[in-house]
């Protein structure tokens, strides 16, 4: 009798609903509410406010103190209170996925977090990095004794953000995973909760940051790579001195990020004939580097696509058919239970792998372009008569303003 109501696997009514003789009423399951929608627009408003204030403090008011307090605010509000999700850095992936996947719907909130700092950087420089970014804020507050990094090393490591950016977009558009979020070093600290490795990575970065100022921002942050480009075209930008540089070099010792360019009087002027030849050589070199990068990228697409869960399962089933009998392999057991055929899975996997093939060509070519441009940039002689913040790498933290003796 008990099994009278047994239908199918999906309809799981095997036993009748209870009827109580006593005055017992059934409780209902609780459903704690998620954080409200309205709060997200408070976040956006605060982001705009913090960036506007940073721009004002950096450009007009020339106040390091103001920016310092904004940094503290961002670390407390965007970091510890709001727990860091979603942030502008991670929103790159949402935007990339929205562009690639017809079914994915991005929330306006994520889109604004992606756009606003970029738009601000086109007008005022990297004010987002200066005080609004919670990841940067934590590192900025913990700079203890910054060391100088040799320019060749600094510039070489400067390629890493572009590699990270390219990889994260590749993994996002193929629907594989969001690597920026998965390897975000500071989110575990902000939540004061998280996997052991995530916290450890965060602490490692902070300890490194005591001596190498803002290591994540400078040598990894993919959003910083974007801002580095947009900020070069900014309408206004923090200026070290209010009137005229007296070449006291104090700002260069104040800047922990080595983001202050030296005047050209300290550099040797290159021989114009020689430099024209090198200029042309590098111009030819860029397409060669792009082609080489694309070729190397395409060679690695099989390896990269292994990160995708569908490709991984399909490969595992084909190369190790004996694993079908392994009751502990969850991916394979769930696939077998789902009733999907191996042909369908293989088709899906090869479609994803095709995307990886095209994507890794583009990724390789992009990295070739970046490396070519960076080398090319070294050759261009830009006339500079005074010490000035580099628009690409300056975070608008305003430390140099405090040191500048010019009134």
């Amino acid at each position, binding site marked *: 009798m008990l099994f009278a109501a047994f239908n199918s696997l999906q309809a799981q009514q095997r036993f009748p609903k209870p009827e*109580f003789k006593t005055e*017992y009423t059934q*409780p209902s*399951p609780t459903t704690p509410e998620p954080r409200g929608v309205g709060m997200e627009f408070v976040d956006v408003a605060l982001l705009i406010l913090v960036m506007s204030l940073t721009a004002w403090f950096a450009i007009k008011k020339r106040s390091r103190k103001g920016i310092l307090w904004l940094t503290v605010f961002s670390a407390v509000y965007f970091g510890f209170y709001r727990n860091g999700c979603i942030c502008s850095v991670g*929103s790159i992936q949402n935007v990339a996925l929205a562009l690639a996947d017809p079914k994915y*719907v991005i929330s306006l909130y994520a889109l604004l977090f992606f756009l606003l700092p970029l738009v601000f950087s086109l007008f005022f420089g990297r004010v987002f990095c200066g005080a609004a970014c919670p990841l940067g804020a934590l590192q900025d507050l913990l700079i203890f004794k910054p060391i100088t990094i040799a320019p060749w090393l600094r510039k070489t490591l400067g390629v890493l953000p572009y590699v990270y950016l390219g990889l994260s977009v590749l993994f996002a558009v193929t629907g594989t995973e969001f690597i920026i979020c998965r390897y975000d070093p500071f989110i575990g600290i902000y939540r004061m909760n998280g996997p052991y490795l995530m916290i450890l990575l965060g602490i490692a970065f902070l300890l490194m940051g005591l001596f190498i100022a803002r290591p994540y921002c400078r040598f990894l942050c993919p959003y910083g790579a974007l801002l580095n480009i947009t900020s070069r075209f900014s309408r206004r930008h923090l200026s070290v001195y209010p009137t005229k540089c007296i070449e006291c070099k104090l700002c260069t010792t104040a800047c922990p990020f080595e983001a202050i360019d030296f005047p050209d009087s300290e550099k040797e002027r290159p021989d114009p004939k020689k430099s024209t030849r090198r200029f042309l050589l590098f111009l030819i070199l860029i397409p060669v580097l792009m082609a080489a990068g694309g070729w190397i990228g395409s060679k690695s697409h099989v390896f990269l696509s292994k990160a995708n869960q569908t490709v991984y399962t399909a490969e595992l089933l084909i190369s190790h058919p004996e694993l079908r009998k392994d009751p502990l392999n969850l991916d394979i057991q769930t696939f077998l239970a789902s009733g999907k055929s191996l042909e369908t899975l293989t088709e899906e996997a090869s479609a994803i792998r095709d995307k990886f093939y095209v994507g890794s060509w583009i990724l390789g070519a992009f990295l070739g372009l970046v490396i070519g441009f960076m080398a090319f940039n070294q050759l261009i002689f830009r006339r500079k008569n005074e010490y000035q913040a580099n628009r690409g790498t300056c975070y608008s933290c305003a430390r140099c303003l405090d040191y500048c003796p010019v009134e």
Partner: protein
Amino acid sequence: MNRKIFLTQSGRWVLLGGLAYLTGHIFFKRKVSASGKYVWQIDPFKCSQCGRCATQCVRDLSAVKCVHAYSLCGYCDLCGGYFKPNTLSLNTGAENQLCPTGALTRKFVEEPFFEYTIDEELCNGCGKCVKGCTSFGNGSLHLQIRHDLCQNCNECSIARLCPSDAITRVPIETAYQIKGDFINPALIKPKG
């Protein structure tokens, strides 16, 4: 206007145009939801109780908890979600209980009914009871992401590894999918 200023200015407009194009593209293709907030949730009918919810969440103690859909259940003494299969005696001894953390407790209501409750401080979302309940009972115990605990990560680290793709982003209005009916809503075909 010298060459440098001209290049900077035109570069700025090109980049602004690019951002505007990108935004327009996303808006035009209706890929943005203006009021929309999305939260992660488990489809209980897709869930295969693999146990990864207990280990893959970014929180120490998973934000996935077992939920009891009370109206669905027969509350019988021989609860497949409460007792291990082939237990020697049906009593509340720890060796008989399925739940590894002792989060699932029951209270006698009347013959033969019990009220089953889950202590969320103890539940780790392993889904052992869900497996038992789905295999031998009505399936009233099922896993749900609790939104007071969930950090609403940009990408749910459990969803990434969920073998049955049961975790998806759902609109905030339908933040919970409590089993209210006996039948999988996906299996009901719309009339007409």
